[in-house]
């Protein structure tokens, strides 16, 4: 190779304009083909489950959500203070406010405190692989599932719990608990093991109900005693429910 000979290069810049033009069209296409807020729902249905999970997770702005949540909580407590202030005027308003506050407490919109129990559920720390249809697999009993949490919450209410929270998310009337991918979703909030369920109620009754033979905790204990940790508490404080409370469809009949 002789480096002093000028290389034969067709260095005309004729390529720039066609490539640029097609790049412009390409940019346009990419922009209108992307997953955006407007076409998100109509296109999510065509993705496969794995990709759907990734896209859905990427679309959630966790920080903004948490910020809004704390704002809702603080605004609600401010509202309670204002209601108390207004009610200071007369007997009738005081009565009205008392009934309002007890209704709010019942609906889970006020913080509550009292004695109760705290149950911690966690995925089995030493899962044993067993042979399922000739393949080594970790059996599903090693993990905490949405139905387990649902069952536990249900059992606590059945045993007379007056307020329940799961990982500091208060369970209220419209609360839903379900499974999304590897996490459990409580009112659109992702939680994962360990899951702390706190309930206010008579500690003895609650504990007795939970530890019933064949009860909710019995299944876990039989599989792996380390999956459950349960203790009585002198004083538990639960934050108020921070989800939506306004109705979109339902209304209260006039009569």
């Amino acid at each position, binding site marked *: 190779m002789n480096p002093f000979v000028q290389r034969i290069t067709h260095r005309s810049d004729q*390529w*720039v304009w*066609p490539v640029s*033009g097609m*790049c412009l069209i*390409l940019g346009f*296409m990419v922009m*209108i083909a*992307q997953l955006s807020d*407007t076409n998100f729902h109509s296109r999510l249905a065509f993705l496969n489950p794995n990709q759907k999970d990734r896209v859905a997770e990427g679309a959630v702005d966790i920080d903004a959500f948490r910020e809004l949540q704390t704002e809702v909580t603080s605004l609600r407590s401010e509202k309670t203070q204002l209601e108390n202030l207004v009610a200071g005027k007369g007997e009738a308003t005081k009565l009205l406010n008392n009934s309002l506050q007890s209704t709010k407490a019942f609906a889970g919109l006020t913080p509550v405190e009292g004695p109760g129990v705290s149950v911690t559920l966690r995925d089995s720390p030493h899962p044993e692989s067993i042979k399922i249809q000739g393949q080594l697999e970790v059996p599903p009993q090693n993990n905490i599932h949405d139905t387990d949490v649902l069952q536990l919450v249900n059992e606590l209410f059945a045993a007379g719990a007056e307020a329940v929270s799961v990982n500091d998310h208060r369970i209220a009337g419209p609360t839903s608990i379900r499974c999304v991918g590897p996490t459990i979703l409580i009112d659109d909030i992702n939680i994962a093991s360990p899951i702390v369920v706190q309930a206010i109620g008579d500690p003895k009754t609650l504990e007795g109900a939970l530890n019933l033979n064949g009860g909710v905790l019995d299944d876990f204990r039989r599989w792996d005693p380390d999956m459950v940790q349960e203790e009585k508490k002198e004083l538990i404080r639960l934050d108020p429910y921070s989800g939506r409370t306004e109705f979109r469809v339902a209304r209260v009949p006039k009569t």
Partner: protein
Amino acid sequence: MVLLPFVAFVVGLLLARFFPWNAVGGLTGQYLAVACLAGIDTVFGGIRSVLESKFNGIVFITGFVSNTLIAFFLAWLGDRIGIDLYVAVALVLGARIFTNLSLIRRFIITRLQDNADRKKLQSIVQATAGAPEPNI
């Protein structure tokens, strides 16, 4: 001049942003995404052919248009006849994009190394030309 395609790409993005029917939804959006893949492949292929000095404007433009249309309709056809041709298109085009990009990278690296070598040799030649002829 070399940066013009990038600028054009960004202009295209912005143009679509201010377009009234922004972001196509549903299945059309899905097919259009495949078409985008074909477009990306063709553009990289074009850049590669420039580096190989065998770029032809007509071939490039017709290639771009026909490739995007073919990708779009192959994906569409796949759903009509119940085969995931969409995956086939994505797979083939993805592989081609990788090949094109790696070839572009090799061409650019070779060119840079060639230039560096040439400069080095030229400086050596200049140094020896300046020095008195060695007596042999």
